[in-house]
């Protein structure tokens, strides 16, 4: 009983038809392109390039394609003929298909363009330079939309504060919880490691002057004034700015924003204000935690220098003023508004389709971090000039 099975499993090789293409000249000197064999999805690819290549070499008009030797042809095979026709049309020539069996001709008719011009695809791939130019033009458009959006938020925020009843406090609490409580572990970890790293790096330099004790001053000032707010804001962008963009973007794709609008619930009041308020409420707490974790990290390193804990603490308290801490918290509040506003703006700008949500999430994080860095620089200059 083995024998027939084996025979069925491996048919004779010559019975597997393959596809091929060749150029054939007849006695009258006219050239034909001959397609042969089995043009299915698996084999059409192997003759596709060659068929087009041969056709390009042929000067004949019309170019005759002899299809009488095609055993089998499906959509993929038929597209070779369509591609050949398009090639010829692009060169201002014609194509003549001969001997195509009736059943294959029907497939060809199915996939042939219907004559009417299809609408231009919305976007084409463009060269690097064009893309670069477009994106730098787009930068100003973006800046504009950001300013407009900020204005809208400010107006809405002002109105919300005058009519506190219109604020959806339940949403504020939910968002604050997610943005705040959820961020505690990562803030604590990053703060601790940051303090540790800063302490080690500064200790290396200060050691040469025997001034390791100033590590404590350095940690306090750096964390409270700059790094605490900055790192907290960057982590907030990564965790919550992106989430805002994704949430609002999904709602946009899902027509939920449309639904809000037609219910007379302005999306800015309904979605943006609670998120901005939550971010502003949460970020001071995150900054304080970041500061604390940073100081503890610094302390951990400081203890290896054989100073007592009290020394470290006294230096930190002496080196920093409440103003440093408050200044840092103020900066943080501004960063918080930026993070939330950019996240929400990117969300509302989401186009159609699911991939658009991913794009706006990425863009929320990128522009959030860029804007925070720029604002931090501006703050540094202003604080320096004002002597704060």
């Amino acid at each position, binding site marked *: 009983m083995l024998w027939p099975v084996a025979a069925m499993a491996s048919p004779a090789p010559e019975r597997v038809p393959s596809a091929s293409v060749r150029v054939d000249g007849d006695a009258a000197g006219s050239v034909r392109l001959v397609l042969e064999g089995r043009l299915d999805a698996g084999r059409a690819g192997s003759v596709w390039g060659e068929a087009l290549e041969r056709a390009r070499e042929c000067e004949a008009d019309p170019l005759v394609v002899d299809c009488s030797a095609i055993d089998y042809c499906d959509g993929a095979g038929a597209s070779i003929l369509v591609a050949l026709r398009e090639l010829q049309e692009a060169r201002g020539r014609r194509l003549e298909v001969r001997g195509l069996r009736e059943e294959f001709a029907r497939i060809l008719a199915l996939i042939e363009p219907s004559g009417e011009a299809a609408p231009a695809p919305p976007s084409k791939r463009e060269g690097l330079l064009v893309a670069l130019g477009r994106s730098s033009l787009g930068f100003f458009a973006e800046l504009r939309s950001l300013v407009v959006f900020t204005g809208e938020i400010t107006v809405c925020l002002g109105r919300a504060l005058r009519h506190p009843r219109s604020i959806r406090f339940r949403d504020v609490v939910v968002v604050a919880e997610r943005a705040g409580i959820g961020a505690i572990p990562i803030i604590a970890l990053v703060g601790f490691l940051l303090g540790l790293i800063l302490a080690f790096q500064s200790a290396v330099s200060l050691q040469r002057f025997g001034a390791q004790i100033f590590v404590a001053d350095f940690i306090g000032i750096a964390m409270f004034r700059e790094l605490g707010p900055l790192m907290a804001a960057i982590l907030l962008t990564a965790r919550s700015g992106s989430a805002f963009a994704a949430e609002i973007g999904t709602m946009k794709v*899902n027509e939920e924003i449309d639904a809000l609008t037609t*219910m007379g619930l302005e999306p800015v009041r309904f979605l943006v204000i609670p998120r901005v308020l939550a971010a502003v409420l949460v970020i001071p707490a995150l900054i304080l935690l970041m500061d604390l974790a940073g100081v503890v990290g610094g302390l951990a390193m400081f203890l290896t220098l054989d100073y007592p804990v009290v020394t470290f603490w006294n230096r930190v308290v002496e080196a920093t003023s409440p103003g440093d801490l408050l200044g840092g918290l103020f900066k943080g509040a501004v960063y918080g508004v930026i993070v939330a506003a950019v996240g929400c703006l990117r969300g509302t700008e989401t186009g159609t389709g699911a991939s658009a949500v991913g794009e706006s999430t990425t863009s929320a994080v990128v522009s959030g971090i860029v804007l925070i860095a720029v604002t931090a620089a501006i703050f540094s200059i202003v604080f320096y000039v004002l002597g704060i």
Partner: protein
Amino acid sequence: MPEPIIRVEELTARYGGRTVFDRVSFEVGRGEVFVILGGSGCGKSTLLKHMIGLYTPFSGHIWIDGEDVTGAEGDAKRAILSKLGVMYQSGALFGSMTLLENVMLPMEEFTDLPPDARSLIARTKLKMVQLEGFEDFMPAEISGGMKKRAAIARAMALDPEILFLDEPSAGLDPITSAELDQTILELSRNLGVTFVIVTHELPSIYTIADRVIMLDKETKGIVATGPPAELRDRSDNPWVRRFFRREAGGEAAEVSA
């Protein structure tokens, strides 16, 4: 036709440079069940979103109850919107709220009803669309057809004068779909609610529609207006006749044509 409640005048819609439909005009009578038909992608949803003032038309005007939707802003717009209930094609339920909260939301924002009254009203609306027992489900936990029904309940929350429904019966089984037709008929007869409905369900068109318009992708305009039975029997546009006949079970007519 009764006195018009919606008037669409020479409305042209574009996305970027591409015209979806061009200078479309029609009227919807007060209390009518008005159906918008057309092939997929011919701009039915786009037309609906223009009618509710969500999109700004490229040109043309829409009047609802004598108010120009096109230029309305602030309180004028709110006044118009308060007359409308909309069910979007995707349902557009708020994913972070339960079905009950979804239906209660418009009431929360626009009425002074105490919470238990809101909840009671919301429950009756959900019951009207056969969603009793699903009040505390999240939208992600129910099927597509149920989402549509919940969205209809939400659209009805404030008892609007005009209900816009974008493909309400797509994805519903025939029985639920027939029940929905009954709900629509009752609301229309008993409360005088005006309906603007995008649908493909021929049986339900014959049951509910007072008048239909048919949008056409090729001509970018309206190819037929009138009561459905009239279009089926007497339209001079063969394509329109075929649309009605074929789906009404006239396969033979299609083959011999």
